[in-house]
């Protein structure tokens, strides 16, 4: 399973997106924005799924996502690769 972090411009955007993503077939969780990511908003959304078309699924609908990061491990610590920017 791959993990993705979605960042937003505001807490309200993050909360609205979390509500909008309910009911989709992957795990959606609001988390504090990881320290390795720079974002204006302290809240991010973590998505866990194994569908590589997830970026399209998320962005080809009305949304307020600022950036999407792919989580990977390097020497047992977490790193984030930016894979989408609005």
């Amino acid at each position, binding site marked *: 399973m*791959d993990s993705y972090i979605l960042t937003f411009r505001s*807490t309200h955007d993050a*909360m609205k997106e979390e509500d909008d993503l309910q009911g989709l077939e992957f795990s959606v*969780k*609001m*988390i*504090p924005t*990881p*320290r390795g990511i720079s974002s204006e908003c*302290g*809240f991010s959304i973590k998505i866990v799924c194994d569908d*590589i*078309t997830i*970026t*399209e699924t998320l962005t080809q609908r009305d949304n307020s996502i600022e950036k*999407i990061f*792919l989580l*990977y491990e*390097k*020497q*047992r*610590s977490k*790193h984030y*690769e930016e*894979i*989408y920017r609005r």
Partner: protein
Amino acid sequence: MKKSIDGRSLPCPQPVIKVKQAFDEGGFGELEILVDNKAAVENITRFAENSGHSILSVSEKSNISTIVIENLANEATTLPETDTTEIIMGSNPGVSNIFINSSTIGSGEQKLGDKLMEAFIYSLTEMDKKPKHILFMNSGVKVTVEGSVSLENLRDLEKSGVTLLVCGACLDYYGIKDKLEVGKVSNMYEITSILTSDSNTVTVG
């Protein structure tokens, strides 16, 4: 051993995700990826370098680019990166107990308070130094029952050795005793004993 990925016709960022998945699986020395657009070449080479691997070659023929990456996952390189916050925390004994006395953090709009509690418990799972106990009282017990968004994170904390103690009288008062999903039912004596034997407690709620 060499592994190949055909990333042609895949839109960005799918080729990068495939590369990441291949490195997660491992079991090869070199990874060859075919892609048909410049953005994918840039994204893959940047990701490979960021994640500590080495680009052996990038070649292009009839608009198809071939990237060959050396898998350096098993090489002993530099120490894991730590930021200064963690270094400061490393010289600190840490907090022994966290006393959660509300299902939300602070006063204000409940929706935000709920999210802050969820985020706080998630951040505990990410900390190197974990508390010994987390004590739940009054509406704080609602964080441990069926339907709580924090159950998975609390289970992770339990697995990493944190003891979760939940006020039985509080569960009873709210009529949710049979809904407890994580932690152990406790009582005022046990909770008071922990709070008084170790003054190193942070209250959240």
